[in-house]
């Protein structure tokens, strides 16, 4: 039995996303040379949320946001079943500042695959990583996020579940751990 513990409820999640947006604006100003790329399958919802909020705050409608699938670049292909998702990047990333967005940073392998996948679309000027949840002490690769919603300490057998109103009915982040 997995026992759920709520890490972020809907109110806190909204505050966190808003804070992340202001941190981004602090560095990237009006986003004229910056694009957002959400990683499939679960990073795209956070990317969309941030994209929407940024457009509201900056009163702009032309901030670029795309989605990127990493399936074909993964190193654990053939070890588990992977389902490819849609990649949709209809803008140029050559010379742009890219903010890569994912929901949970765990081993870092998805981000590694994401970096490779992204390079097929050109050479960005600069790439930064934004994650909602950073699971500390669980990295397999030297990858760190620049913008972090919340850092948590967890053991490998635990699971972090990020849910969104659009797909799961409610905004919340839960930690599922094995019942002792």
């Amino acid at each position: 039995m997995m026992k759920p513990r709520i890490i972020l409820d809907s109110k806190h999640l909204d505050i966190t996303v808003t804070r992340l947006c202001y941190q981004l604006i602090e560095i990237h100003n009006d986003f004229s040379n910056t694009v957002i790329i959400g990683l499939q399958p679960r990073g795209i919802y956070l990317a969309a949320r941030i994209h929407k909020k940024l457009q509201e705050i900056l009163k702009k409608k032309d901030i670029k946001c795309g989605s990127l699938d990493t399936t074909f670049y993964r190193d654990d292909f053939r070890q588990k079943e992977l389902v490819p998702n849609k990649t949709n990047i209809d803008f140029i990333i050559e010379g742009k500042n890219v903010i890569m967005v994912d929901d949970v940073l765990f081993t870092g392998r998805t981000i590694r695959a994401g970096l490779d996948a992204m390079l097929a679309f050109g050479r960005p000027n600069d790439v930064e990583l934004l994650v909602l949840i950073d699971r500390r002490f669980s990295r397999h690769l030297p990858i760190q996020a620049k913008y972090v919603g919340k850092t948590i300490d967890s053991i490998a057998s635990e699971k972090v579940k990020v849910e969104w109103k659009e797909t799961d009915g409610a905004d919340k982040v839960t930690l599922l751990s094995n019942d002792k």
Partner: protein
Amino acid sequence: MTTLSTKHLLGIKDLTADDIHLILKTAENFKEVINRPIKKVPSLRDITIANLFFENSTRTKLSFELAEKRLSADVVNFSSASSSVKKGETLIDTVNNILAMKVDMVVMRHPNPGAAVFLSKHIDAKIVNAGDGAHEHPTQALLDAFSIKEKLGSIKGKKIAIVGDILHSRVALSNIFCLQKLGAEVMVCGPTTLMPKYIHSLGVKVEHDLRKALEWCDVANMLRIQLERQEIKFFPSLREYTMLFGLNKELLDSLSKKIVVMHPGPINRGVEITSDVADSSQSIILEQVENGVAVRMAVLFLLAGRA
């Protein structure tokens, strides 16, 4: 459904409808990949694939090779014209020798029906049938299905006419299996002499009047007359065949609706289809070729991913 139910792709007959849907859906992702600035992904970088072509081919061979290279697989090519097959080596010996060099997958075209099935029973590698005699040509049927789906949105309930040399065509047989599994209605049209004897047992409509077939269908797949497989005369002359079963612009324009025209290639321009039809806006012949690479990437990716 995230994996195929089969270890090899020997024919459409062995696939389930779910398998076909999975391949088509995966191919959509690969179609996006091959339209990127960098058209290559590293998925199969640890896989070696041997392309064994015991029969001539341009499109299929190139298409498979491109698909393999865009998946970063290592590729070795073999064609029987320049090989020890001419010295009397058997098929199993040839393939086992190639496998001894550590090959993971084999893509094979062979003039004998059942060659791929035979091979799959005797060797330890994943086999993709790239055409075995007049039996099956599964990747062609899959790319045809992908192209129809892309053009018309779905396949279920659509009417597809396959016109021409049904008797000698592996494309026709694989297409019939594939389209029926996806819920389409299939009609075959051609001279009586080019109809297989047991065609009715496949559950398809049979028509000998091209105009009637075209009025019925949403998509017409015009097959090539395979003169190289015809050891006797099946019709009096090519000119007569063209008059009765060739598709020209006049006939196409006189139909009550706009149908989609397909051809598996190579085209005999002026025989089964005229140039103005092949190059018209209703033809999706070149889309078929483009989709062929994406579909073959999907097949190789899914088979390699299967333990």
